[in-house]
């Protein structure tokens, strides 16, 4: 057990002890369960000084137990003692993760489960703290609604959300994404044959991809009307240049030795392209596809601020903000976040299938 872990444990124990003291002073309002939990957590923190049950799972159980207790007592006026208890729970959760990470020679299956479980635990913690803090501190829902309220709103208005999702993500973002990435890919392959164009277009492309392209949204709305076509146009322009620059860079990534080898096999231009250059370019292309998947969503939603039919994520966000229905806005944000994360995840998965040979995808040998 390292000094750092011991520090966390001591701090956690102290926080729980503080909760215990506060609960005693303000007797009555805290309740027996809170008293008991504080006592248990304080003891759990102290046990490290006597080297008793140092396993991570003890800390995890302590943390989860405290969380469950706090959740069960969640209402407008939480007793003061719950705040130090919350801090104690957080510290014990951290301690559990810290200990697990420090452990060496874990079985392979367990360590791969852990690499998924740890971030999930962290995310759950954020949502939990969000819930407890917004309700416990009575933060106005206009400012920041608690996650439970957002979840309820999400479940209630799935049909609206689905319509918005179709309008913005499927029609505008996806069609623009396919058009933009596809055309950029074609252009990149064409440019690749003309070195002069390559030298000219690459700096320009690099320059353009650093520009605030979302700014063209009002112009596209003027040109292509209010419906999804104008949003798709914005997405096309936004996704074009990152894809172009990355594909061209990827096509240049082959080594002379590899090209020479294929030439000794008497391969034609297309064989060279398909068997060597495109596979080598794949990591670059996937990089662009991933960047573009978020850019496409941003473009489609921002373009809706400049005029839209009465459906769509951007439209809903801007109108519901005006009506102070912040829970609805957050539900839309959840949709956008899910769409963004899912597309990113799918692309990563696809990338791993396609570029399984790439060093970053190979399992590291110990």
């Amino acid at each position: 057990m390292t000094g750092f872990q011991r520090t966390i444990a001591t701090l956690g124990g102290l926080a729980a002890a503080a909760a215990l003291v506060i609960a005693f002073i303000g007797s009555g309002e805290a309740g027996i369960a809170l008293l008991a939990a504080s006592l248990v957590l304080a003891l759990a923190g102290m046990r490290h000084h006597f080297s008793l049950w140092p396993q991570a799972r003890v800390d995890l159980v302590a943390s989860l137990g405290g969380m469950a207790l706090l959740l069960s007592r969640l209402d407008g006026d939480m007793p003061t003692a719950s705040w130090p208890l919350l801090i104690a729970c957080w510290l014990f959760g951290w301690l559990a993760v810290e200990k697990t990470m420090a452990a060496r020679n874990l079985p392979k299956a367990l360590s791969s489960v852990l690499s998924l479980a740890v971030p999930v635990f962290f995310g759950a913690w954020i949502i939990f703290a969000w819930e407890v803090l917004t309700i416990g501190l009575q933060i106005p829902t206009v400012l920041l609604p608690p996650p439970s309220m957002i979840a309820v709103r999400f479940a209630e208005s799935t049909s609206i959300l689905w319509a918005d999702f179709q309008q913005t993500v499927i029609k505008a973002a996806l069609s623009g994404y396919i058009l933009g990435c596809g055309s950029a890919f074609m252009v990149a392959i064409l440019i690749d044959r003309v070195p002069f164009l390559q030298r000219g277009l690459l700096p320009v492309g690099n320059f353009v991809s650093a520009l605030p392209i979302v700014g063209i949204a009002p112009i596209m709305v003027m040109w292509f009307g209010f419906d999804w076509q104008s949003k798709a146009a914005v997405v096309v322009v936004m996704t074009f240049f990152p894809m172009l620059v990355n594909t061209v860079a990827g096509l240049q990534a082959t080594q002379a030795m590899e090209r020479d080898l294929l030439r000794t096999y008497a391969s034609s231009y297309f064989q060279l392209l398909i068997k060597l250059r495109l596979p080598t370019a794949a990591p670059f292309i996937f990089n662009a596809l991933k960047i573009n998947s978020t850019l496409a969503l941003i473009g489609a939603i921002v373009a809706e601020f400049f005029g839209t039919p009465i459906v769509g994520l951007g439209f809903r966000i801007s109108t519901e903000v005006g009506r102070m229905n912040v829970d609805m806005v957050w539900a839309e944000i959840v949709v956008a976040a899910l769409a963004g994360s899912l597309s990113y995840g799918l692309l990563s998965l696809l990338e791993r299938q396609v570029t399984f040979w790439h060093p970053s995808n190979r399992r590291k040998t110990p």
Partner: protein
Amino acid sequence: MTGMVNRVAPIAVVVAAIMIIWYGFTVHLNAPWQIDRYEKAGTEWQMRDLVRDTMAQERPVLPAPHQIVAEIWKTTVKKKITSKRSLIYHGSVTLSSTLLGFAMGTILGIGLAVSIVENRAMDKSLMPWIITSQTIPILAIAPMIIVVLNAVGLSGLVPKAMISTYLSFFPVVVGMVKGLRSPDPMLMDLMRTYRSSRLQTFWKLRLPASVPFLFASMKVAIAISLVGAIVGELPTGAVAGLGARLLAGSYYGQTIQIWSALISAACMAAILVGVVGVISHLTLRRMGLRA
């Protein structure tokens, strides 16, 4: 000299081609409205008139480049800086929130990167969420963040800067983590043979090794920070800033105004990235990393 020509000539040709295409589109896109006008006025017109007039419309579908340049010249040099119509005034509003957001994002990014590299628990639990955070189209929900923060009484520079911060911390984290981990095992072993503490290894090896990575990501960060500032200005009721100029222009169909705001934003992005590039070059040369 020939190397210079070899590098510049293709770019010049491409830019010239873009200009020619642009002028072509100007005539093509603005022609229907112009022809309509001729017919209403009953005037005889030649191709030459059409070309001339399509490039001098008040509210063209696509303004000609020289119109945009003239508008920028008019609103920067000829207007007083304090004037509400001065592009310099609007640009400085955007610039200040860009820089504040960029500074906060860089500091946040460096802090997160250091904690990720130094602590495995942080690495495992934070890193996936940092990546997820960027798949959320924050730019798209920026207006609502501004409005909500306004409701709490936070208005003006800070909310806009926060959007820029959210966008710009990500490249810095990713670059810095890579940079702090870049010293190869041999160097780390060397430090160990010197019996250096973790802190010493950090200051004397990891941090200097990460500087080139930091500057590379700062270039990305400052460009994206500008985008954040512009989008953050959209919902503030078109008060000030380049984003506000965009919005006002789109409300009143002032295409030239939109394009001039857009082009000045582009120039600003180029200058900002250039400045970071120059600072990076000077720093790296001073550190002896690059000749």
